[in-house]
């Protein structure tokens, strides 16, 4: 089952958990499952965060495919100059 890793600043919205195992064949399914379990995560993740799926950073995740062993990290979206 894919694993989603939460950054320290969001863990209090997920009962203090740093990693959560959830079902999902696509990143949108995984995030939907995450938000169902921890509704308070939806707003900060949607508004300010990107995800890294097995090392590939995706700023606006949608239908990216996941494997049973996928590691998804939530991280802050990056600006630049």
């Amino acid at each position, binding site marked *: 089952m894919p694993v989603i890793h939460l*950054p320290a600043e969001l863990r209090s919205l997920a009962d203090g958990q740093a990693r959560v195992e959830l079902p999902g064949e696509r990143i949108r399914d995984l995030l939907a499952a995450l938000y169902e379990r921890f509704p308070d995560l939806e707003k900060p993740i949607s508004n300010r965060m990107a995800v890294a799926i097995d090392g590939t950073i995706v*700023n*606006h995740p949608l239908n990216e495919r996941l494997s049973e062993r996928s590691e998804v990290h939530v*991280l802050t979206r990056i*600006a*630049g*100059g």
Partner: protein
Amino acid sequence: MNDPKAFRFVGSRSIRPDGVEKVTGRAQYGADLSLPGMLTGKIVRSTRAHARIRHIDVTQAMSLPGVLAVITGDDFPDLERRMLPMGEQQMDVRDFIDNTMARGKVLYHGHAVAAVAAVSPDIAAQAAELIKVEYEPLPVVMDLDAALAPQATLLHEDQVTLTMQGPVENPVPTNVAFYMPLKKGDIDTGFAAAEVVLENTYTTKTVHQGYIEPHACVADAKQGGRIDIWCSTQGPFLVRTLTALALEKPVSDIKVTPSEIGGGFGGKLAVYLEPVAALLSMRSGRPVKLVMSREEVLRATGPTSATRTRVKVGAKKDGTLTAVQAKLEFEAGAFKGSPVVPAVMTMLAAYELDHVLVEGYDIVVNKPKVAAYRAPGAPQAAFAIESILDELAGELGIDPIDLRLKNAVSEGSMAVYGPQFKAIGLKEALQAVKTHPVYADPVGPNQGRGVALGFWFNVGMQSSAAVRLNENGSATVITGNPDIGGSRASMALMAAEELGIPAEQVQAVVGNTETIGYCDVTGGSRTTFATGMAVIEAARDAVARLCERAALTWDVPVEQVSWAHGQAIHIAGDHAPLSLDEITANAIHTGGPIAGAAQVNAQDAGPGFGVQCARVQVDPETGYTRVIGYVAAQDVGKAIHPSYVEGQLQGGVAQGIGWTLNEEYIYDADGVLLNAGFLDYRVPVASDLPMIDTILVEVPHPSHPYGVRGVGETPIVPPLAAMANAIAAASGVRMRDLPISPPRLYQAITAQGA
């Protein structure tokens, strides 16, 4: 295509298409456009750094003959506070309006309070003088200590500290706008495992990007409500969005045409003039030009943050890092939004670490709202960590490059900010510097060398490109990214590579917001990566059309046609190849004009790692530091046009040297900037610098068709610490506060001697 041998044109040093226009002074920059009937705009700026505006009297200015419009902050909409996604940045729309023109309070000296448009510059200046602003002065908050004091004067009475989750518990009004922690492992466990622990504080001052061309624009409000804007910007679509917001118009009513741009470095991602010029044009019915003076640029546009970083490092005696803890305090200027978040995330990205705690604070002060500056936040953070690692190397008696090699990330490492790194060239860059003469050669008396690393994420984001083929077999490539660092040449090379024609036959054009689809800004080191990706896809789209036309000509299925070296090839060999110019010349008989287009939302920009070594000589009798050698190595993925990649490295180093040695905003007690000009705000000039050697390490980025990764920002990350480390080695004095100007260094040397 990642095999370098496979490239025909990419990697060559083609002639810069816009070079002749620029060196002969013919290129049109922001202030160069004039329109019939055009008025001169002038902005009235605050004479106070912090004050309530009691009243603004514009009656005398309005009655002056030749004045056609006067506006104040009350003429802009009172928008609800909300964050507007701007590509990768977020902006509070209310702060944007309040920064464009003050309402209620002025928050820094030079804050715009009113604007006029008149038939001549003299009358505009006279009218500006006639606008009377009555202020109620407030105490000024000019640095971190003043902002954080228990009874500190508040810039924004309704501001509380936010986190990624929302307001902190039991929020109270404060100058601390944002708090972000980054945690990994257990920091106490990490320090318990350390055999050596160092802890120090490092500070940097407010510095400006120092772009040569001041902000400038012309706005022309048409009858019927449409507005044309010409301006110097890194993001014409960003200007369109923000101007539409400020004027409460749909974006479709506004066309923005970017001029040539004389530097930006992030500073021209901010929008100051365009909504003002547009509103003056709407009110006057005439085109309006607004041009900032150098003084206005320094007083009222966004520099980067002054910072204070407390950092504690734990290590084994063999140099293995066991823990790093840091507290980063960044000045945001008058409105929230310093680059402390990327500072927190980049600070330790180059190192394998199990136990980390980095905390960032975004703090408002009575200075101009900071703007992006190349790798925003990363240079200040790197100054702290790369300085203390140099001190650690000295303490442990380990070569500073070996210390970094021991702890550096590589492919498969987990970045402290989250993801796993793919192929990266950090260790290759470290090895390259280790054998370079600037590092390896012996040092003379009063000389020293210093090493530092730099990291920047780089970004992708949205880009559009169009490739249009002309009847003579040449091509026109249109993108929406202003050419700051030679991107026309790079776009031409990438299109040439796909089409199979020389780059000289490809005309690269920067479009306006109506001639090309949406493009995010020229920033984030994204243009060659993301817009280049769009160009490659658009050119491939055009090649697909060319193959279809050849198939039609030969009356064969398109599957039997391939493309190579600028020719359609009949795979079975029954027909002689058709060249691109033969196909385009015959296009009228095969379906008409031929073109390709692409739109991308590029993901997974490859991160950039750089390693630099400075070699300096310090005069102990004056404190003067002369840079006598410098080498910058960087993993650039694939250099599309090596000259411009090298130029990016050299430019970043030059700015970083200035940041280290001389540059700083100097304010008086009332918050008035005392050095608002290039005579007193000293950026490095050519005679201050040695030849900056470059080493392009090419570890192809697997997510780009040519292996490209962003380049432009990483080079400014290492110089602050590389220079400070070199000065420490040369003088025997560790300087932890920038700038290390001659009087400061002399004083430190003298104090140590005493």
